[in-house]
């Protein structure tokens, strides 16, 4: 048979000698390899205390952004939802009432905004489609959880905290 490479070594099938049957030199050789790794650079990091740097193009968990006055930027135009290949984004729009100008930037806003993180593939198309610079992907992982229902992210999970009007969460 023609070999693919010339690196093949035939298996040595001769019976082991007494010296070889004692396994001592083989154990010493193996321990030598193992102990030599103590002095080498570690391949892992101590994860929660230590993190690896993210690449600048990393696409993690989404946030909904606010403008410099703390108003929500999203106008529920639906472009992120139409761009989403996984159809993970849904929203319901509402009209801004007089007196809500400090809450919402435009006359229309997203009263409900949800991202199904079970569906999301973190492709970043929503960020790219957004005409209002409202949705961004951060350098955070979606946290793991036992329950599926905790992966439906609503506006209270996505919106960044407002520096001027802090939200009191009463669960």
């Amino acid at each position, binding site marked *: 048979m023609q070999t693919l490479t010339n690196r093949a070594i035939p298996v040595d099938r001769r019976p082991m000698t007494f010296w070889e049957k004692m396994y001592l030199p083989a154990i010493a050789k193996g321990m030598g390899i193992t102990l030599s790794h103590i002095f080498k650079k570690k391949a892992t990091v101590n994860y929660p205390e230590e993190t690896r740097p993210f690449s600048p193009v990393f696409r993690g968990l989404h946030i909904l952004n606010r403008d410099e006055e703390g108003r929500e930027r999203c106008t529920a*135009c639906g472009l992120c939802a139409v761009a989403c290949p996984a159809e993970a984004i849904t929203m319901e729009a509402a009209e801004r009432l007089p007196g809500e100008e400090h809450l919402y930037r435009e006359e229309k806003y997203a009263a409900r905004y949800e991202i199904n993180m079970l569906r999301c593939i973190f492709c970043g198309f929503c960020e790219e489609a957004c005409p209002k610079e409202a949705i961004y992907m951060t350098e955070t992982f979606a946290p793991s959880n036992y329950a599926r229902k905790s992966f439906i992210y609503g506006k209270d999970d996505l919106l960044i905290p407002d520096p001027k009007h802090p939200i009191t969460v009463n669960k």
Partner: protein
Amino acid sequence: MAEEKKLFKVKIDNIPVEVEPGTTILNAARMIGGDVVPPAMCYYSKLQGSGGKCRTCLVKVSKGSEADPRPMPKLVASCRTTVMDGMEVANITSPEVLDARKGVVEFLLLNHPLDCPVCDQAGECDLQDLSYEHGVSGTRFEFKRRTFEKEDIGEHIKLHMTRCILCYRCVFTADQLTNNRQHGILGRGDHSEISTYIKASLDQTNFIGNVIDVCPVGALTDRTARFKNRVWFLKPVDALRECHDPNCCGKTVLWMRGDEIFRVTARKDKYGEVEAFICDTCRFEKKEPQDWVIEGPRKVARYSVISQGHYVGVHKPHETVAKVMDGRQPKLLMNIHTVSEVNQPTVDLSKIEGPAHSNDFPKHNGVQ
């Protein structure tokens, strides 16, 4: 004996066509169809006297007629210029026309707010299509755009004068379809605006809702569907209703999501013009599926954003869980409505009069 009419031979972009005398160049081009049809923002074939305002349909007449073969000195508005025998017209074959059209789009967008993310017309807007196809992305306008307050003209119609391109279509509609026009153009030149004289209501006649359909931009929009949903998330369905109004054809398009009817419009042809006008009862008051006989899904052009997600011949996959579990039903399937706040089965957005507001949505953890 009917006299044999002499047909005029016209060449548009070197495509010959024979048309009756008195036909405009635009209509002659529409008889050919396809790419040679000039775009039109103000001309509306169903409205007499429309056209000549927006200048998007400018074409070059390279040969006036057989008798007088000189070219016309300037580009002409094809919706207002009638053909002559032997006329030769250049539309897309003339770089001059395409360049002029770019300029016209820039002019139309001078004062346009470009609030497409907010506007309900986005996705079916003539100006959006026009500027994508013919326009340039930049503008040379350095001044403040003129702005107006939003106005409720009547119970059902919202006027965003800022978006208006002054095509006069809605004025012609009110003149020709209703017997009592309540709105018109006030002011002149740069100051002209569509308005009613001192906040009159438009709802006094039964056909005024058609101004929403004829509006090429989002200046006149349906208040009953305002901000409810984007057009590309709704499913257009042809529907029919026996309307008691003799002038109403009853043939409409329902914009549905599930069993909810969000919006009723007239059926529009490929030039964005309605096939027949519908009355306000059909448009604003019949929002129940049992009011309508549904004919089938509306054909949407492939390049339109409305066609996204509308697949032909969809096969719904079978539920396989029970089959692989010896007939037992799964016990731990998550019902999305137990978690999700969006599209709750108990809340029908289409049933809310006018746009939804913050008080229509219950607060959740102190956040909207």
